[in-house]
């Protein structure tokens, strides 16, 4: 092994440990944050007994969950029943490996370590665990694996409510994945690349993509909510209908794995939204954050953390505001609204970019994005003000009118 290879491996392992630790502690604290935010929104105080302001509450919950008895339903398929929590949990964690959490750090490192020998690393060190050339395609692929954990958990429990929850989740996640993937194509069109590094770079040169690609951002966010099974799309859980859906039969740490993977998924989707639409670790209106120094790396890490945190708060805010969708409304929203909207938006963006570049002859990225931003203002007005008046997002109305027609026909026949 060469010194450079060993240096790369060593630094990767260090990054792995740091990211894993931060994500796991962050997920634990997210459970506390969720309870605190829900409490504040209901004029309560939330957990404040364990540790200062309840900060040790996740630790207490963890100890409780580990010490509790593991129960197995009598007729369950034990192998899959035990495997399912891990299958939900691992994809959620895997995703944190590819997101760039800070600006790359320029490293010039030569050392002679005991046991390892000479190690060295020269050049720019990316602050994602690995900067995959397939970028967000990897995220889309892995996030769709998460559905197996939930669907299998529901099936292996041998309980009708669990099975319904598992079925709902597989249908829901498969439906919204389509809209999610389609909503990212305009990002591709604008960047010309799928790697996160390139996406962040083009946002630094132009605008944050939330402005020129607002509809994309909206579709991605809504599908993200559905993908993480959060309210208003938490039909797999749906405690008022399905007891607890797919994790009804789980107890102790196996149960706890499902909330952990849900929060890890939330963190990943938030990080994805931030990276794709809010400039990633970019500090707005500055350029010193790209100079590769240690200070820039730390500052961008903090900024990234704040951005992700604000989106996590947004997730919780939505959860404690909106009621759950009815199942047919959920499907109607995914297939009849978000998917066509995403497809039309791809067309509009592609044509707009072609006109701006080929007909208008604009080469400056920032000007290009400002023109797209103007277009998005118009599109946003059309979508959210002209069409959103009982035309879209009301699967309920159409379904009930069909039902009326059906019953009228039945009455006539009788």
């Amino acid at each position, binding site marked *: 092994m060469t010194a450079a290879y060993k240096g790369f491996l060593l630094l990767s392992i260090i990054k792995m440990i740091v990211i894993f630790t931060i994500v796991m502690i962050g997920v634990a604290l997210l459970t506390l944050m969720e309870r605190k*935010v829900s409490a504040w929104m209901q*004029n309560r105080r939330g957990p404040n007994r364990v540790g200062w302001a309840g900060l040790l509450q996740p630790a207490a919950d963890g100890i409780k969950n580990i010490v509790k008895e593991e129960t197995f339903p009598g007729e369950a398929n034990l192998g899959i029943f035990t495997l399912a929590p891990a299958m939900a949990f691992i994809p959620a964690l895997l995703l944190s490996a590819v997101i760039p959490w800070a600006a790359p750090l320029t490293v010039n490192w030569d050392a002679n370590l005991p046991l390892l020998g000479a190690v060295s690393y020269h050049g720019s060190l990316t602050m994602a665990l690995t900067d995959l050339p397939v970028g967000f395609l990897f995220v889309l692929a892995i996030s769709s694996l998460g559905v197996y954990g939930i669907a299998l958990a529901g099936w292996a429990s041998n309980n009708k409510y669990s099975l319904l929850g598992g079925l709902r989740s597989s249908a829901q996640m498969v439906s919204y994945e389509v809209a999610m993937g389609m909503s990212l194509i305009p990002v591709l069109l604008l960047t010309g690349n799928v790697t996160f590094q390139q996406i962040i770079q083009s946002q630094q040169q132009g605008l944050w993509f939330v402005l020129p690609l607002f509809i994309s951002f909206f579709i991605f966010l809504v599908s993200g909510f559905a993908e993480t099974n959060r309210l208003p799309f938490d039909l797999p859980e749906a405690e008022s209908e399905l007891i607890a859906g797919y994790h009804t039969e789980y107890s102790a740490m196996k149960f706890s794995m499902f909330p952990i993977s849900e929060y890890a998924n939330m963190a990943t989707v938030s990080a994805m939204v931030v990276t794709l639409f809010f400039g990633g670790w970019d500090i707005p209106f500055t350029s010193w954050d790209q100079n590769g120094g240690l200070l820039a790396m730390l500052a961008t890490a903090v900024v990234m953390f704040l951005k992700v945190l604000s989106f996590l708060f947004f997730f919780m805010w939505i959860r404690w505001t909106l009621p759950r969708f009815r199942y047919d409304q959920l499907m109607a929203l995914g297939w009849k609204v978000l998917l066509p909207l995403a497809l039309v938006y791809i067309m509009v963006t592609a044509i707009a970019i072609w006109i701006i570049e080929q007909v208008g002859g604009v080469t400056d990225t920032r000007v290009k994005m400002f023109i797209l931003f103007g277009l998005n203002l118009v599109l946003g007005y059309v979508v*959210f003000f002209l069409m*959103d008046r009982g035309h879209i*997002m009301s699967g*309920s109305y159409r379904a009930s009118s069909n039902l009326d027609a059906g019953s009228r026909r039945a009455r006539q026949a009788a």
Partner: protein
Amino acid sequence: MSIGVKVLKRPERQVSYVRAALKGMALTFKHMFQPKVTMQYPEEKSTSDERGQYTISPRWRGTHRMLADEQGRTKCVACGLCPQICPANCIKLVPGEDEEGNRYPLIYEIDEFRCVFCGYCQEVCPEEAIHVGVHFENSEYSRDRFVYDLERLSSPEHSVSTLWDPTDPKGE
């Protein structure tokens, strides 16, 4: 048609999910900064609340108290009305009589597990001796501790319940 059901037509136009959602979010956000209503129980108690925010009703019927007269003797004359009226049959009374002919309870026990806290004993008592009290913290480590004898009924200091007055039904 036996029951009149008013069927409302769902609004079709001028409704917007996005705007309704934003409105709801503004509401929940506003609630985050409103004063909290939680009572921090072991530190704050509804029986001794200075701010008067969580005070429980003076008519609350909780743990019993046996009152004493000015000489410190228990007021009870062992007339036997309270075990007679008690619907849960939780009062055990053995009467005694001293040399001067004054009746007093030899044994007076209330089983707080059987008690339904109806307050009839307080209502029926001619001497205003037994009362239900404004108090609710009765946890113990063993079951037999819930049979309160005369000493434990006489020692507590909590205030006694106000009886419902038929001439003043709302307590004004």
